[in-house]
């Protein structure tokens, strides 16, 4: 029995520690630990509920937008406040642009190198790579000359004795299986993706005035004054700039991202068999189409034990099925007590003891739905959409399975999505769906403004006494919910149950492992000192944990360690 500890002592974000017991080349048991205390919610106590979103979007430096959106929805829910249609559409466009940005960055910049061997790309024949790419996609960025230029660039890097960003990759690891031509294409698209993720973020900037940390929200709507002929407002010019970017994103996502994920899934078919873990799934509906939040363009619901036929829908922003069934447990978390409570009732009293995998070992709490462990994220979104017959989700999922199946020369059923690479495929499927819906919502906004509706804001009114509210947002990493108790116009309690808490949480009072922990069991590990396979599965969730802090360390004493004990 070998114990592997992947324990970053890094300076930014992360703070995730994974422990695995490996025997016979496979993970037998795993523990996921959040190594940093959050509890930032207490900063909100006593504050103006209208300001909460400005603070909550500082919870995390990467997912700022999502905490802002969830927070305004939460206070609106507490007040029973509807918001104008324009405000919904503008928020939806920001949400979708952010999601496209986040998913592209995750796949190319943050996790592709788990599958792509950069050094091997140097051996590729650019002409062959170009021919292969052109047989799969009409994308104009795959010419022999362009691929040759990328190869030369990487070659210069390597010959100069440094790999730069690619240092510390697991190059030459026996688990790397792509042919040199596919590696070269992936490296070329890695560089193109940098450009496209920046481009789509401009939509967030145009509509939100700034990113990270958008400025245009308000409890009750948005602050984007609409006047098509005014330089300073949301006008024709800005609207069409947004449309142009969304068109460009559609092409990149459907002609590049789609093809790359299908190719990688088809060439690593083993990884459609590892990493399932928890097959209970939770997703909430998003992209509201009315002022109340009762009709949506993306569906939500729950699935238990992988039974798609038994899907139960979450229908509205007010749905008691969601409100009444969420709890958090601290049985194995470093908080005082042993309770499992509803978010309205929670208190956050930290009590650190040492890492003890049989007792308490994480700062992350364990959220549960009807007492059950749930996996959240794009896979949950896609499976719930598929089960509910959501047309675009079904269409892109079928197309993905067909295309990846053609590469693998086998027929792939939807069941392969319960896996490590299934999570990457689902993230891509969701991005394709969103790339279409973004254009649809742009059209809805333009049409509504064209009708002469320029309303963007309804004034919130705070009654005396206590109100409770919850707001959810189906963020890139999954279901995010905020919960508020307001008393006499001030915040009395505030809790955020974030996607990575659902997925990265420790065992609960019934010792049910969390999704990360369960997904690692059965993963192969060829070399305990280079646990690429463990990282593949953890990365497939797109973890984002600390949501808080970083201090630069130019003097470089920190180390991320991988220990095999």
């Amino acid at each position, binding site marked *: 029995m070998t114990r592997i500890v*992947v324990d970053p002592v*890094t*300076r*930014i*974000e992360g*703070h995730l520690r*994974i422990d695995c017991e490996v025997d016979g080349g496979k993970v037998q048991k795993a523990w996921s630990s959040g190594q940093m*205390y959050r509890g*930032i919610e207490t*900063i909100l106590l*006593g*504050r*103006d509920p*209208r*300001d909460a979103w*400005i*603070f909550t979007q*500082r919870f995390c*430096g*990467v997912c700022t937008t999502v905490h802002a959106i969830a927070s305004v929805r939460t206070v609106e829910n507490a007040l029973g406040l509807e918001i104008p249609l324009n405000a919904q559409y503008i928020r939806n466009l920001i949400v979708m642009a952010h999601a496209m940005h986040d998913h592209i*960055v*995750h796949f190319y*910049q*943050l996790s592709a190198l788990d599958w792509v061997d950069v050094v091997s790309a140097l051996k590729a024949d650019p002409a062959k790579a170009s021919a292969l790419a052109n047989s799969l996609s009409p994308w104009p960025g795959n010419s022999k000359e362009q691929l040759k230029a990328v190869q030369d*660039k*990487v070659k210069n*890097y390597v010959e100069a004795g440094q790999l*730069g*960003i690619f*240092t*510390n990759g697991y190059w030459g690891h026996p688990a790397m299986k792509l042919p040199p031509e596919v590696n070269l294409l992936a490296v070329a698209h890695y*560089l193109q993706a*940098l450009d496209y993720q*920046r481009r789509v*973020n401009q939509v967030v900037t145009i509509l939100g005035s*700034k990113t*990270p*940390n958008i400025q245009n929200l308000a409890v009750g709507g948005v602050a984007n004054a609409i006047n098509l002929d005014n330089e300073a407002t949301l006008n024709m010019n800005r609207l069409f700039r947004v449309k142009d970017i969304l068109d460009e994103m559609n092409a990149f996502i459907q002609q590049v991202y789609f093809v790359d994920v299908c190719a990688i899934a088809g060439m690593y078919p083993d990884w459609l068999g590892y990493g399932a873990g928890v097959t209970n799934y939770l997703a909430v509906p998003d992209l509201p189409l009315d002022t109340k939040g009762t009709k949506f363009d993306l569906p939500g619901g729950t699935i238990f034990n992988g039974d798609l036929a038994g899907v139960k829908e979450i229908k509205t922003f007010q749905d008691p099925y969601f409100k009444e069934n969420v709890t958090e447990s601290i049985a194995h978390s470093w908080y005082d007590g042993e309770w499992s409570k509803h978010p309205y009732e929670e208190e956050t009293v930290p009590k650190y003891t040492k890492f003890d995998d049989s007792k308490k070992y994480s700062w992350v709490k364990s959220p549960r739905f009807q007492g059950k462990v749930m996996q959240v994220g794009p896979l949950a979104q896609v499976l719930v959409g598929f089960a509910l017959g959501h047309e675009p989700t079904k269409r892109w999922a079928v197309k993905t399975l067909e295309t990846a199946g053609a590469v693998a020369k086998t027929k792939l059923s939807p069941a392969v999505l319960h896996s490590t690479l299934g999570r990457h495929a689902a993230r891509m499927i969701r991005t394709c769906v969103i790339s279409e819906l973004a254009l649809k919502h742009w059209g809805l906004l333009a049409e509504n403004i064209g009708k002469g509706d320029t309303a963007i804001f309804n004034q919130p009114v*705070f*009654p*005396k006494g206590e109100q409770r509210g919850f707001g959810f947002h189906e963020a890139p990493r999954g279901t995010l919910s905020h919960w508020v108790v307001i008393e006499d*116009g*001030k915040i009395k309690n505030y809790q955020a149950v974030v996607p990575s808490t659902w997925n990265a949480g420790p065992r609960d009072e019934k010792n049910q492992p969390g999704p990360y922990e369960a997904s690692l069991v059965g993963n192969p590990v060829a070399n305990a000192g280079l646990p690429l396979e463990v990282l593949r599965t*953890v*990365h497939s969730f*797109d*973890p*984002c944990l600390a949501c*808080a*802090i*970083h*201090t*630069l*360390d*130019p*003097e*470089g*004493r*920190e180390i*991320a360690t991988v220990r095999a004990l």
Partner: protein
Amino acid sequence: METLQPVRVLGLGNVLMGDDALGPWVVEALLAGWEFPEGVSVVDVGTPGLDLTPFLADADAVILVDTVKAAAPPGTLLVYGRRELAGRSPLPRVSPHDPGLTEALFTLELAGAAPHDIVLVGVVPEKVEKAVRLSPAVRRAVDAAAKEVVRRLSAMGVAPWPRARAAAPAPWWESAADFRIELSARA
């Protein structure tokens, strides 16, 4: 006329984590006290990880302001050049959100869009933990850090000038606790 390449001053840090607000604080102080020539932007970017990339891309010069870990007393001002910032290899990635400044710089180098010049104006923190205020030592360093930024911009030929009616900086995260809400009559 030559096109002016952008110069960016970026305050990094989490305003909810005590001294980690140093970067955003210096941005507030700069904007309250100074006006900047065209082409110079001064932005509080929070803790963006790899999302720092667009703020670094294609810039002529970038001045980062952040807290730094160093063996020096809290409030000490330290300045680092490009070599010290990019001189180390990126770390093995564990969480995909681990990548930060070094990774953003390397990525842009490969893409051919790295900033021409980059410098970090750092301050050693005392307490980086949940709070919306700076410790006294770090609060005292805000002015010195802001002046260092002004000095560097001037040396680059894009000197800011003092505002005619300079106001004391009032960061929203420290002032927002003071509010009044009119409650409606209905209970």
